[in-house]
């Protein structure tokens, strides 16, 4: 008769003890995390907003020196250096000024004890065959190895090696980013249909004889049939075509976020389709330091003309030409440049206080609302870490993640074993924070970023924190301008007759290497024609 009563008590006891055990284990682990979570080494860097913000209320000294040059290029990112590279090639006179202590812009890179890594853009798709000047540049830096660029042979060390990408879906890594596991027949047929549709767009020629979608953007057809697509969002386009598969939607949304910093709800259908239909080649080129490799190729040729730590704070039109006031943060002096042309290759918003005419102010006001901030985290990891059921790929994406995934900077290494490697995790901050993203980005501490980065990694690699040695954060407050509906049909701001050329990709709303390269090239071509 003692049995039952005893058992009830024992059961209660053990149930209670079990609950305590769970909560104490969980709680203990949490506590341990707080106590023992290492303080990761590293720093926050990126766009130098402290310097840039001084333009809001400029207190720079009056110029006490004068300098003359034909063309002054503002900004040593890809578009500015491309302009400089081509002016140099044609023997024309120019100077480049850069706000930061190093060249790079969105193609910046850095290094740690594992080697170099990208802080921004990290690959270039093989150019379409008609991009002659780009191919010539690639040839000059050894990316194309043969003479005949009609049939270019790419250096196999730079072509992205296999395994290119993998996706973490339903608790496992799969090869490729298009979801494969758990799809219904309907999902699969929708994905197939979507690709067929994109293939059609790839082969479409407008009535003006131009390809419907191509690179650079401005070479695309102006046929209204295709420009119609700029009036709706990518989401509306997908709905119109009856695409309902959540896997397909995820994939298309991911691609838009990856290239434009915003998803299908935000971007123009024209831009969304451009991602899939503008390129005729499949392979991509990549380097340990990302597009820093390409940037260096441009920079090395013009380095002697580049003034770092310098900011343009005033431009005045004189009869003789333009007078540009430039402050140097290192010497604390201002220089007055007397120039014929200005190539403005810094992000457009930064020109707000420099060019005061109304049409430009209206344009800036409009574009300012479309900027998206990005955060790029570089995480140094011990290489003997076990990366999951599939080998570490170049691009590694979690279907259920918040970030855009991470890229392995050691992917192109020819070595069998790397003792350390750095993975680069990309965050399009609008996706999570919406309109408050920039404020959020500027007020988050290094420790908070680390916490976020690790939490995201732990979704796919539960025990990775022990293998992490260092986390560096790069912040890009005005990383790119979203190609919203109408971006293609509303003409970008041009002021060329005034001898001021805007070449930053902000004006194209598509932040890719090719656009920047051709923006710079085009401005330099116009300057060359003028000087002849």
């Amino acid at each position, binding site marked *: 008769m*003692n*049995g039952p009563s*005893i*058992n009830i*008590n*024992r*059961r209660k*006891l*053990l*149930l209670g*003890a*079990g609950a*305590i*055990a*769970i909560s*104490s*284990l*969980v709680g*203990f682990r949490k506590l341990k995390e707080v106590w023992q979570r290492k303080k990761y080494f590293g720093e926050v860097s990126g766009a130098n907003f402290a310097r840039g913000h001084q333009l809001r209320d400029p207190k720079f000294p009056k110029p006490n020196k004068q300098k003359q040059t034909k063309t002054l290029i503002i900004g040593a990112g890809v578009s500015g250096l491309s302009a400089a590279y081509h002016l140099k090639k044609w023997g024309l006179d120019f100077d480049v000024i850069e706000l930061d202590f190093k060249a790079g812009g969105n193609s910046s890179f850095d290094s740690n004890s594992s080697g170099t890594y990208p802080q921004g853009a990290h690959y270039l798709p093989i150019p379409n065959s008609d991009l002659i000047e780009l191919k010539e540049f690639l040839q000059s830096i050894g990316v194309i190895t043969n003479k005949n660029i009609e049939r270019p042979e790419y250096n*196999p*060390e730079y*072509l*992205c*090696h*296999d*395994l*290119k990408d993998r996706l973490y879906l339903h608790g496992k890594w799969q090869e490729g980013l298009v979801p494969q596991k758990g799809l219904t027949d309907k999902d699969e047929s929708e994905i197939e249909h979507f690709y067929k549709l994109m293939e059609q767009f790839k082969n479409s020629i407008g009535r003006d004889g131009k390809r419907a979608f191509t690179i650079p953007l401005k070479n695309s057809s102006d046929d209204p049939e295709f420009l119609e697509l700029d009036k709706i969002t990518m989401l509306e386009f997908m709905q119109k075509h009856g695409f309902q598969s959540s896997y397909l939607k995820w994939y298309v949304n991911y691609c838009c976020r990856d290239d434009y910093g915003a998803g299908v709800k935000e971007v123009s259908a024209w831009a969304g389709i451009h991602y899939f239909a503008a390129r005729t080649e499949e*392979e991509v080129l990549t380097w340990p330091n990302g597009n820093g490799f390409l940037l260096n190729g441009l920079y090395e040729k013009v380095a002697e003309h580049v003034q770092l730590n310098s900011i343009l704070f005033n431009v005045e039109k004189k009869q003789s030409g333009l007078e540009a006031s430039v402050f140097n943060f290192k010497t604390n002096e201002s220089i007055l440049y007397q120039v014929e042309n200005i190539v403005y290759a810094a992000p457009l918003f930064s020109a707000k206080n420099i060019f005061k005419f109304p049409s430009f102010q209206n344009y800036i006001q409009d574009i300012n609302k479309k900027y998206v901030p990005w955060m790029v985290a570089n995480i140094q990891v011990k290489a*003997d870490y076990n990366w999951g059921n599939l*080998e570490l790929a170049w691009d590694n994406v979690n279907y259920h993640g918040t970030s855009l995934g991470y890229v392995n900077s050691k992917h192109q290494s*020819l*070595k*069998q*074993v790397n*003792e350390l490697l750095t993975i680069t995790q990309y965050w399009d901050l609008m996706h999570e924070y919406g309109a408050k993203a920039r404020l959020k980005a500027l007020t988050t501490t290094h420790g908070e970023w680390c916490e976020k980065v690790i939490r995201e990694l732990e979704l796919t690699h*539960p025990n990775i924190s022990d293998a992490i040695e260092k986390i560096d954060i790069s912040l890009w407050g005005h990383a790119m301008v979203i190609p919203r509906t109408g971006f293609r049909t509303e003409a970008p701001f041009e002021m060329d007759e005034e001898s001021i050329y805007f070449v930053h990709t902000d004006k194209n709303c598509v932040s890719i290497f090719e656009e920047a390269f051709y923006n710079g090239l085009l401005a330099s071509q116009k300057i060359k024609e003028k000087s002849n």
Partner: protein
Amino acid sequence: MSFALLISVAIIATCGLVYELIAGALASYLLGDSVTQFSLIIGVYLFSMGVGSFLSKYINKKLLSTFITIEFLVGIVGGVSATVLFIAFEYVSYFKLLLFLFVFIIGTFVGLEIPLLMRILKDRYEFKDLVSKIFTVDYIGALFASVAFPLFLAPQLGLMRTAFLFGMFNIAVGLWTLYLFRKEMPDYHLKKSFGVLSIFLLVGGFIYSDKLLQFAESNKYADPIIFQKKSPYQKLVLTYGNDLKLFINGNLQFSSMDEYRYHEALIHPAMLSHNNPRSVLVLGGGDGFAVREILKHKSVERVRLVDLDPLMTKIFSTNPRLTQMNENSLSSDKVEVINDDAFVWLKTKNKEQYDLIIIDFPDPSNFSLGKLYSETFYKLVARALKEHGRLAVQSTSPYFARKSYWCIGQTMEAVGLKIKPYHAYIPSFGEWGYFLGAKENFGISNKLIKGLKFINTDVLSNMFIFPPDMSRVKTEVNKLNNQILVRYFEDEWSQY
């Protein structure tokens, strides 16, 4: 009621909870999803205790003796539980079944304990007092366990040792009870011996638990391990039974029984295809066997061996059993050993050209190794080869991995090399394949050196004949950006 009795109740309670926690922690550690694992373990454990309590009413005779037996059994089963489950996880497919079987058995025994104990003691103490005190210490024991387990036991001792330790406690309680009631025990000595023996078993487990975990791994190898060490690059294991075997990352590299077949076939055809080989470059082959065969040729003046792993070349130039096998080849005056990555070394450090290049890399079983069989790599190899130089490449099995084998040849041809495929039978590996390569058309003389155990003129000519089931198949060229060879290889070996 005696203080000692209360202590033993507390110990029983602590043990019971510890086994539950061990099973839960072990399940979440091995299977993931800790909330699910803990819930299931607790549920099954409590249910089993219910079963135990229910069963207690069928025990009507020899209550004391049964109680002691149960203490011993709980101690043994609970004590070995973590170790058995850890080892079983590597080997059995029905691991979860085994896990819950353990939980059920332990739970049932623990469920029997308190009802039996109360019935034993009910006539010796006042019932009110008995219930009150037993439950008080029961709770205290449980609290002790749930605090000690995550804070001290699991982090300091580990799950296996914790289990052994508490198994000993259970048996100790059994032995102590046995001692107290020794006059009422007809089989006192038998029981005592059994209990003491069990404690020794568990003490042994506690001390050697690290070794036991190693055993879990070493069971993968058929023969006893005589050497194992992990370098930053790979894990080397040497076993010795009837023969000596080397495993790298668990894959058989050679057996002393027939390695001469593999290495004679790798070296001598290439030697015979060159009329006066003087300088030789060996890539991989840190075991020194290829070099042993090379040094049999008197024309050779210099051998340079590039192997990634210093540990590998070190043990093969110092361990007496191994240097006896490779005839101390790595210590020869003619031989220079370089520890470097072959790809990077060829690309950035090598300044010379060689009469003969021997490539003896592991099979292309992952993307890193696949790079060593790529077009880009063979371009570098061709650059390091003299105009009349010759090349021999170990190329996996043309029988088991036919496409992989021919893909290697196809890739060598893609960089402009002339190739000659050949093969040999190695009992440990099966039918194995190689390629000879050169920058010009070439033939093979049959002037074999003396003293070979495998190759004679007939064997040599047969090596170049391929039966239809291994004959050439069309493949793609292996490039860094398609790694097609790794894909063929994975696909083909997955069928065996």
